[in-house]
């Protein structure tokens, strides 16, 4: 019994789809952000799995890309949570159904 690339890709795809369903369906803006974090993490897992099972000589590029994605995810979380707190101070809610300032 061996663990191959497909096993890791399966887990990663399932985590990605759960994160997608969370990001599309949650009412709280912070819940949406948690779904986005799950999706980014699943992509990281995919990159590191491809890097581990790669046929190239020095397969470090996948892990390098994962470092970039972690950086972008941290910046994105900081900006999105700052936006959520700012919206809360103006509108007293973080419900994405009630944030409709741009509606004509």
């Amino acid at each position, binding site marked *: 019994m061996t*663990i191959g690339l497909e096993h890791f890709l399966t887990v990663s795809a399932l985590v990605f789809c759960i994160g997608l369903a*969370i990001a599309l369906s949650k009412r*709280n803006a912070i819940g949406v952000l948690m779904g986005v974090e799950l999706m980014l993490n699943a992509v*990281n897992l995919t990159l590191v799995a491809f890097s581990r099972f790669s046929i190239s000589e020095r397969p470090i590029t996948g892990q390098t890309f994962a470092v970039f994605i972690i950086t972008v995810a*941290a910046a994105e979380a900081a900006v999105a949570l700052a936006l959520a707190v700012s919206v809360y101070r103006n509108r007293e809610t973080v419900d994405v159904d009630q944030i409709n300032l741009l509606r004509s």
Partner: protein
Amino acid sequence: MEGGGVVFAFYVLSAVTLVAAGGVMMSRNLLHAVLFLILTFVGIAGFFVLLSADFIAMAQVIIYVGAIAVLVLFAILLTPRSGRDNGETKFAAPAMLLGVCLAAVFLFVMHDTAWQTNDAVRQTWAQPLSAAPSWKPGCSPSNSPASC
């Protein structure tokens, strides 16, 4: 990747990760959802260790568990009057349908593709100095005069 320990660790980690990710979806309280999210991050860090990506695993624990989860927790605690419920909008059923369809497509594609994989564990750490060839001034792999 053979061996009973690797197989056991993989299945335990995947169970923890998937159950915790489902817990983020299912839990009604937003604080419980954050705790499940932390458990998911720790499970994926375990996967990184299993894939012999030690630096990414450490960065995952430090940045995701240590920084992003705390940031999310602070944001929840700073928005008290919006309620802590983790409910869905009216798009819950279409979103879950889309997730299931996308998962089916992903699984079909990745099991139908003939991946060219190399399962060998590579040496990613540096060689000790005693194992390296002896070095003399003026000698390098690109410039090696006859005195080397």
